[in-house]
């Protein structure tokens, strides 16, 4: 009998310690997700009771709202151009900085500084002004003989303000790549050199395969984070997503539907579509990972 009591006590103590997370998860995550699924089948403006409308919100989204498609297109461009560019820069600079030199510490600091301050309103305001008609980006373009671009008039150009801001913040991925590079045993490179492998072969036969788990991790986390980007789009377009929806990232459009137009039902339907897109993409990356991610077998 006392044994049984002790076992129960262990269970209770365990749950007592994780209870903040459990309660928080139920109240602020699980319940809201379920509620937003319900709301996505209703018409709800926050002031009158939700009324059931079936699939109407989804029908409107797919068949009756060109702005939704534009927002989706802008977001996909932002994610699928921005994330690969960001990871490429992160990997290249990590390779560049993966050596013993006193200056490397300083370089590393400077390269990842943007990813610390990049999420702030101040930096978004700064970025807006870099791309002004007389801003330094246009000055730089003129300097190399190109014509000025009217970044705030052309929707295709406007998106590049957001993409470059995202790429500029490659620092945190770079640090994760650097940690991955440090974990590769030097003996592998030595052995390869003895066997006469050139630097390019060493990179593609040793570095890349051993980094693939880190690349997988970075790809998934950065893609999800990119789908959630809000502050830069909100600040750079002053909350509107313009010009001509050129910077109307999905989060911004969802925010506008919910908190500018108080169309909570529609916003909830959008939220669920986003959840499905992200889940599908993550599943896809994981499913393909067995073909390109190299997992070391543990040896003692």
């Amino acid at each position, binding site marked *: 009998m006392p044994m049984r009591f002790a076992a129960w006590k262990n269970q209770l103590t365990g749950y007592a*310690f994780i209870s903040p997370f459990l309660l928080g998860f139920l109240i602020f995550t699980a319940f809201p997700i379920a509620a937003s699924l319900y709301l996505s089948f209703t018409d709800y403006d926050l002031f009158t009771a939700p009324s059931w409308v079936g699939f109407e919100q989804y029908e409107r989204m797919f068949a009756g709202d060109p702005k939704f498609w534009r927002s989706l297109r802008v977001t996909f461009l932002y994610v699928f151009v921005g994330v690969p560019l960001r990871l490429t820069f992160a990997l290249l600079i990590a390779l560049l900085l993966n050596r013993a030199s006193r200056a490397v510490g300083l370089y590393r600091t400077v390269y990842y500084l943007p990813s610390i301050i990049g999420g702030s309103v101040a930096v978004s305001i700064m970025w807006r002004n870099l791309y002004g008609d007389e801003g330094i980006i246009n000055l730089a373009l003129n300097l190399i003989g190109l014509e000025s671009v009217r970044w705030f008039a052309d929707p295709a150009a406007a998106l590049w303000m957001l993409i470059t801001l995202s790429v500029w913040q490659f620092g945190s991925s770079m640090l*994760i790549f650097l940690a991955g590079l440090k974990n590769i045993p030097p003996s592998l490179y030595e052995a390869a050199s003895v066997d006469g492998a050139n630097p390019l072969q060493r990179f593609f036969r040793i570095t890349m395969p051993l980094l693939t788990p880190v690349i997988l991790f970075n790809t998934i986390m950065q893609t999800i*984070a990119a789908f959630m980007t809000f502050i830069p789009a909100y600040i750079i377009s002053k909350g509107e997503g313009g010009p001509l929806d050129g910077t109307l990232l999905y989060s911004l459009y969802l925010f506008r539907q919910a908190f500018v137009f108080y169309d909570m039902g529609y916003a909830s339907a959008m939220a669920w579509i986003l*959840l499905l897109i992200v889940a599908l993409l993550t599943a896809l990356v994981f499913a393909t990972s067995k073909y390109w991610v190299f997992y070391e077998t543990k040896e003692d």
Partner: protein
Amino acid sequence: MTGKRLRRAAYHFLAAGGAFLMVYPVIWLFMSSFKPSELIFVTAGKLIPDPWIWDNYVTGWKGIGGLHFGIFIKNSLVLVVLATIGAVLSSALVAFGFARLKFKGNKFWFAVMMMTLMLPFEVALVPQYILFAKLGWLNSIKPIVVPAYFGAPFFIFLMIQFIRSIPSELDEAATIDGCGKFRLFWQIIVPLIMPAMATAAIFSFYWRWEDLLGPLLYLNRPSSYPVSMALKMYLDAETISNWGAMFAMSVVSLIPVLIVFFLFQRQIVEGISTSGLKG
């Protein structure tokens, strides 16, 4: 010999040149904040202000609508401190539970927690807002601060990894000596995981200081605005005449972030490299 030196010079030229390009926008912002508003874009190509003036800081600090910038900084600090204390302490508690206690469902809930790391926050946004509205919490800092007291999955994960690196003989010895689980946590584990708690506190500071969405949704009175919302007000009122003030206050809002960055670089690098914490 000279070939090697040449290669080294080329390396540093490339690395330092890239680094300079990376910080150039920030330097430009800083320098522009000392230029007269009407000259900022006329002289955008020149870095050094001529004349060098402080007026932007004076007008910027006076603020908007009779609220000086110190009020916004104070509001930000209140949010940061309250949310950070909550997030760090509750996350430590939960991390200890996951890392050290044996109970049914430990692995399951850990997996659930890791899944929430990959969840787009938008999916919970609308019902959360409705929930806080029903609780009568709109126009207060409660919707921003209270959820922090229920643990932050990133911090929990970071601390779990740290606790796992501590030998469990310590716990066993303490348990044999009749030490209860909570005392074990508070008197033995907490002092040992201070570095991980410090890292979590630093990231919490960054996220809360820079957060815009929470204040945008839940705070309506300018007198309760944090710095991020104050800058947004400057942007909404943007005219040629107050560019300078907006630039100056942007610089002011970055100063605490930069100070923490330079003081705690080691923790930040470790935090990002070991748990993938996003900067």
